[in-house]
């Protein structure tokens, strides 16, 4: 779309003081955590308006993470789709290979300023675990990462990376042994070690202020992309596409564009084996509002309110909830949410690798699949910007196994 049509519309996506995005979000936490959350909120609001803190973060993002990441015109993918131009925001080029480091750099620095000596994190695909372990190593802090047993098996390379970085990877054997259970265990650790421990949540979920804070730290993606679009294309994209598990890379890209009425935002959830099969992780597409992990949001549960097991080929999207701001964006209609199956994502994984020489993470492959579909139905003068949130090196083993190849 041209800049002239990029009208700013007054859509507020800021939560109230208690972290509510409309009816979503909030602080559904046990009493032991309430004071720690209050402290975290105060610290975050103080430091985010501190020039020195923000300058340090910007410098770290530039010199350590390697920002800004480019927006790349995927010419052969565009030709294959035969419609709109497809651009990729290359978060896969960040240090540690995904957008997750944007958040852990910010929260790590915050932990430092709050005087916490120990960092804990939960992880699904292992990207957030690696990003947390990386920051902990750099800041000289102890680090424990909780990871479901199922995910430990499917992301063995990332587990070893975390150990190399000095983190202790703690296997989680309760429940479905995936991301949601890792989050439960990390919360239990935090409640127990609240005085000296900082919990880096890896997505825009959890109790206030996490959804807001994680979004803010990832919003560097959207701010950069918006500036790059205007500088390089003198236009804003017509559509933004990003995968949504908890939703941090999507909100990071979307948020700075929320006021641009002409920019459509499409979040892509994991439809697993198909939305109709029940074996998926698409809480916005097929779930309903409830309370999980500290916030009110869309989630997947049964009629008794028990959280159901999810399925996705990508560990990073295998989560039964979603960030509360996404729930709000869905209800207000400002963003749309769709599902992409395991099979479609795997096809895109191969397609992008062969056409562009870029190996995408299985998570990001969901966004690529849907962006490609959309581009095919659009005009050549239009632009689809896909957040390539992570690289796929970690998924090589999974893909080989799925295809019956032993490495």
């Amino acid at each position, binding site marked *: 779309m041209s800049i002239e049509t990029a009208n700013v519309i007054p859509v507020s996506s800021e939560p109230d003081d*208690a972290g509510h995005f409309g009816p979503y979000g*909030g*602080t*559904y*936490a*046990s*009493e*032991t*955590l*309430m*004071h*720690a959350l*209050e402290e975290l909120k105060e610290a975050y609001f103080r430091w985010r308006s501190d020039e020195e803190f923000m300058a340090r973060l910007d410098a770290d993002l530039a010199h350590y993470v390697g920002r800004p990441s480019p927006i790349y015109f995927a010419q052969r993918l565009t030709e294959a789709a035969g419609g709109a131009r497809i651009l990729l925001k290359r978060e896969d080029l960040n240090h540690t290979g995904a957008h997750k480091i944007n958040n852990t750099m910010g929260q790590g620095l915050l932990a430092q300023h709050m005087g916490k000596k120990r960092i804990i994190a939960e992880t699904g695909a292992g990207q957030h675990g690696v990003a947390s372990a990386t920051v902990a190593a750099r800041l000289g802090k102890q680090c424990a990462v909780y990871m479901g047993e199922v995910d430990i098996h499917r992301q063995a390379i990332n587990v070893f990376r975390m150990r190399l970085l000095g983190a202790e990877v703690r296997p989680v054997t*309760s*429940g479905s042994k995936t991301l*949601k*259970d890792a*989050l*439960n265990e990390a*919360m*239990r650790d935090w*409640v*127990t*070690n*609240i*005085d000296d421990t900082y919990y880096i949540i890896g997505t825009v979920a959890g109790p206030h202020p996490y959804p807001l804070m994680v979004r803010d730290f990832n919003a560097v993606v959207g701010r950069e992309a918006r500036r790059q679009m205007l500088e390089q294309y003198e236009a804003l994209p017509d559509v933004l596409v990003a995968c949504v598990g908890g939703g941090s890379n999507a909100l990071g890209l979307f948020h700075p564009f929320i006021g641009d009425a002409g920019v459509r935002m499409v979040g892509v959830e994991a439809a697993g084996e198909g939305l109709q099969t029940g074996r998926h992780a698409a809480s916005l597409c097929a779930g309903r*509002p*409830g*309370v*999980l*992990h*500290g916030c009110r949001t869309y*989630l997947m*549960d049964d*009629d*008794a*309110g*028990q*959280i159901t097991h999810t399925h996705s080929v990508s560990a990073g999207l295998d989560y039964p909830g979603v960030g509360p701001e996404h729930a709000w964006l869905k209800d207000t209609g400002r963003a749309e949410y769709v599902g992409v199956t395991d099979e479609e994502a795997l096809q895109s994984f191969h397609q992008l690798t062969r056409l562009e020489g870029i190996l995408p993470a299985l998570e990001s492959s969901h966004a690529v699949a849907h962006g490609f579909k959309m581009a095919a139905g659009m005009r050549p003068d239009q632009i689809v910007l896909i957040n390539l949130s992570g690289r796929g090196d970690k998924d090589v083993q999974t893909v080989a196994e799925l295809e019956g190849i032993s490495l």
Partner: protein
Amino acid sequence: MSNRIDRRFEKLAANGRTALIPFVTAGYPEPGWTVPVLHALVAAGADVLELGVPFSDPTADGPVIQVASEHAIARGVSVCKVLEIVREFRSGDRETPVVLMGYMNPVERYGHEEFARDAAAAGVDGVLMVDCPPEEMGDLGAFLAEQGIHPICLVAPTTTEARIKSIAAQARGYLYYVSFKGITGANRLDAAALAGPLARLREYSRLPLAVGFGIKGPESAAAVAGLAEGVVIGSALIEALGAADSADAACTAVTAFLAPIRAAMDNTSL
């Protein structure tokens, strides 16, 4: 509005006795055993009963209650079933207060208004939502109040003075003091360190104080009984239940577990 909880604590105070408050996960180990187990607990000296509503993701609980919850869920225990259990218990015991303890999502799914109405009809006296601080209670708090059900609130070692004030203003029945920073069943109780925080609580609330988390047997129960109006025992009791292979065995096990605790507490009450 006064209910069974208030009446029970008034009576205990008059007799100089500390409330023994066992917690069991509803439907563990078998749904059909919970009602006889509750009656056995009362017979062994329980004054208030806390009944856990199982949830798939109990983030404030340790492994014992977590496994008991998974076990009960696998046997089809839902909010609906828990209320059925309370109704059946109530038909044989009109006096002992019952407090439901659980997490928000199952109640969300049941519906706030329907939950308050059906819980009151079943004979529930208090509700403690572990993952819902008073500021998020919203209409659930109002519906419970309408039905005369007390919101039971937690206070933790980390709760600030300002929060204690606002919690005290909303809490009814009794205040549940979490004895340490941690999850249920952990081994971190330091009874001697409780005196200070409990005294601080009394500056803001006249409600009876019950202490829970980490109380495992007669010795720790007796130590806490000297400081508070109530002693909550959960994980250790559930462990005692775990080995039972019949309803009778479950009742025998909880009686054998609870009776010495009652005796120890009665020797050291306030």
